[in-house]
């Protein structure tokens, strides 16, 4: 399985632990990822607020480079990038005038956009292309007893994504069960984490993050599993500020790929787990695991 890989700016910065865990996990499953040459910022939500045309060109440039690179599906781990790239595809298909404008801009760099590249999220690829059976085979250290709150956030499932339900997505739930973890009922799984408002308008943004943490604690989750660098940052790095405002809501938030890596027997450090503000409680030593752990 070969994919183009669009890391996005966050995975090179605040979300580097996501990339650090994604790459070994994918390699372990035999998935080839080739980083898109000279990719640029997807435009994200902020750019959309300023200039729609320029934002579309930014996204389209990446899609055009992916086409030029061979047209494999473009793997996009960041939810914001995933949404922006899919949304741009959608609008360029729907609005011929905008498409013509974008096409003209791309032609300045001898690039061409056909709209055929599929933008995929690693969760989609892992569950639907690699398959849960293949993943189960690689589990050497089942996460038995670990209570996971699966948190999908907003932009992965809404509104351009089609691989899971917008209201009650289940792919990560199934993935976590495959790893041997116990999935807690987490009704806030698609609620917004506050996005960049945690930094800009903390009184609003942090409260959203707080509600997510509070519910995870109430449901007795050991760890929240995320798919998005911004969600992870908000739920992890703002813990101190949140607890100072509203009291203790201690629960670690990690990338779903980090949990996969742990189940595959990789070390926490290798997976970037040391980059968390709120550390995840170490898994019990392997020999304490029940013996059926090796059966698929």
């Amino acid at each position, binding site marked *: 399985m070969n994919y183009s890989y669009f890391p996005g700016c966050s995975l090179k910065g605040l979300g580097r632990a996501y990339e650090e865990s994604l790459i070994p996990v994918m390699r372990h499953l035999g998935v080839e990822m080739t980083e898109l040459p000279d990719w640029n910022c997807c435009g994200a939500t902020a750019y959309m607020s300023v200039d729609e045309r320029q934002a579309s060109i930014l996204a389209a440039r990446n899609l055009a480079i992916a086409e030029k690179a061979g047209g494999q599906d473009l793997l996009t781990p960041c939810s914001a990038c995933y949404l922006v790239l899919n949304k741009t595809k959608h609008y360029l298909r729907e609005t011929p005038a905008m498409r013509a404008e974008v096409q003209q801009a791309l032609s300045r760099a001898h690039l061409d956009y056909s709209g055929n590249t599929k933008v995929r999220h690693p969760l989609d690829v892992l569950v639907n292309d690699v398959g849960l059976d293949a993943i189960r085979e690689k589990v050497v250290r089942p996460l038995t007893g670990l209570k996971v709150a699966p948190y999908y956030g907003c932009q992965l499932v809404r509104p351009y994504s089609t691989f899971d339900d917008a209201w009650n997505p289940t792919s990560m739930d199934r993935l976590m069960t495959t790893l041997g973890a116990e999935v807690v009922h987490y*009704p*806030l799984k698609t609620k917004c984490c506050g996005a960049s408002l945690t930094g800009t308008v903390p009184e609003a943004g942090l409260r959203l993050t707080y509600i997510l943490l509070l519910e995870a604690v109430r449901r007795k989750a050991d760890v929240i599993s995320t798919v998005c660098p911004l969600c992870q940052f908000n739920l992890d790095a703002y813990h101190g500020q949140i607890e100072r405002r509203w009291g203790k809501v201690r629960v670690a938030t990690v990338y779903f790929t980090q949990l996969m890596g742990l189940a595959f027997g990789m070390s926490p450090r290798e997976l970037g787990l040391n980059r968390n503000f709120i550390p995840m409680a170490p898994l019990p030593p392997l020999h304490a695991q029940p013996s059926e752990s090796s059966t698929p």
Partner: protein
Amino acid sequence: MNGTNHNGIRIGYYICHCGHNIAGVIDCGEVARRIGVLPGVVVSRDYKYMCSEPGQELLRQDIRAHDLNRIVVASCSPLLHEHTFRTAVEDAGLNPYHFQMVNIREHASWVHTDHAAATEKAVDLSRAAVMRVRHHRALTTTRVPINPAVLVVGGGIAGIHAALTLANAGKQVFLVEREPSIGGHMAKFDKTFPTLDCAACILTPKMSSVRAHKGITLWTYSEVAKVEGYVGNYTVTVRRRPRYVNEALCIGCQECISACVYREPKFPDEFNVGLGKRKPVYIPFPQAVPQVVVIDPDRCLELKTGRCKKTCVDACADRNAIDFTQKESLEQIQVGNIIVATGFRLFDAKRIPQYGYGMYPNVVTSLELERLVTSSGPTGGEIRLRDGSAPRSVGFILCVGSRDLKTNRWCSRTCCMHSMKLAQLVREHTGADVTVFYLDIRAPGKGCEEFYDRSLKEGIQFVRGRVAEVTDWALAPEEEGKLVIRVEDTLAGFVRRIPVDMIVLAVGMEPQSDAQSVRRLFNMSCGTEGWFLEKHPKLAPVSTFTDGVFIAGCCQGPKDIPDSIAQAGAAAAEAMALIDRGYIEQEPNTAHVLDDCCGCKSCIPLCPYTAISFDAGSQKAVINEALCKGCGTCAGSCPSGSITQNLFDDDEVFSEIEGLLHA
């Protein structure tokens, strides 16, 4: 073609303004002027309303004064007024088929904004009709006798009322119902709005009249399997499912039910929408008609395993009504008209997961609450939460599944009133705080606004806003252990969280899941939403495009009980109008074989009505006019052009094409 002799052809052309409908876009005077100069056109006029009595009179006078023998009227769709004008032409002494209609309203003025182009189109269409009408021949209709029996499909309130109306007029009626009892949705209701009179008191006497009426043959637990023939002469095959109880012998004593080897009712009871339990042998509800038990083959031990003690048979004793050997049977009946009253189904609330139906036990549908509030229901009329306690606060969410492009875009019309009725009953029974979350209160019926007024005075809270979600996570102390509704109070202008004990979802109506196959069975059309399509929303609201097939009740669209009954009466009257005339007049658009038929027989297998046969004597095909329904398929495919179709003759169509294109 232009060689046609115009001598003797005197055409009158009339273009209708239809008030502003046509004249607002099309320059009618200009069209009349340009058509007036065509060869053969003697009179060309524009007039405000051609279909009005003065308009028709204008036609009749001109026919007499100018000795016209062909008439063209350009106005609305022929499906609307062709018959009107043919009758007017006939009144003036012309053959009604020496008339041609041009549709410049639905096909031009209403669909185009460019006045010049629409006028040009009206001229082209009119020229085509003028050229075509020259070729029209005098035709006569044939009369076919009508079978006076009527089939009514569906035994809800609409079907019951239609059947009784017809039977009371002395007609023979077959009433076919899929469920083991008639009664439909109405039988499940406690009280009816806006009068709050008891539903059973209205319905059950009608149900027993059906059973008692000599003119009605009632077949429950049966479905129509096949419909053949045409108006006046339908042959209908009905599939009768086995009840495993002989209807003629069962007296409804229900001893078999008490005697069943299942001591306690164990299986979800359909009538109580799963809130109650029944045994494998059961009677759907106490007032069921017919009062005949039914045995559920999926639950009955004997039918499943063949190894039951059959205590029911012993209980039935010498009446011997129970018959485990019953098989499905097919019965054939002959009827002249069919009334389809197959009703609706309720929207599945699980399709809107954010309201938590199926996830939170105290989220119920309006029909479930209806069963809880009924004294004959599973709780004896006590409104109870799943834990057995009485709710102290109840929220009603309206428009569930309705007015939503993702589910059903229509308004279901009854849910506002239905919810207000239930809200009043909840207050009456429990004294709970009731909040109704609505988008717009639609209470336009007679006495309905007054009912809304009364609901307000009863202390029911109304919050205008579509509920965004129902959750069980508390953010404030008063929310602990409750269901929390999050909604924008759009009148107050802010978001509210409202904790309640019970939530009632006012689920909308949608077409039955098998509406498409039923539609095909009776050769009807469905609208975009899937409701059966009436022939015309105003002029023919209970007719369909198939003559002799009528629709009544909610299968045509959501409506309340008074409207369903009114429609049922209208459908019965339409059927009676046909029956009492005694014959059907057939459109003379039948096909005929010309002398130059070479006898290749290629047309014979094409006819869907097997109206074409081969005459060995003359070595030509022959069309049986009584069987021909006038589709023209044979005429369209005859390799030697030796079949013509009346009203759609080659000459007529070719002149129409020429007229359309040649300025």
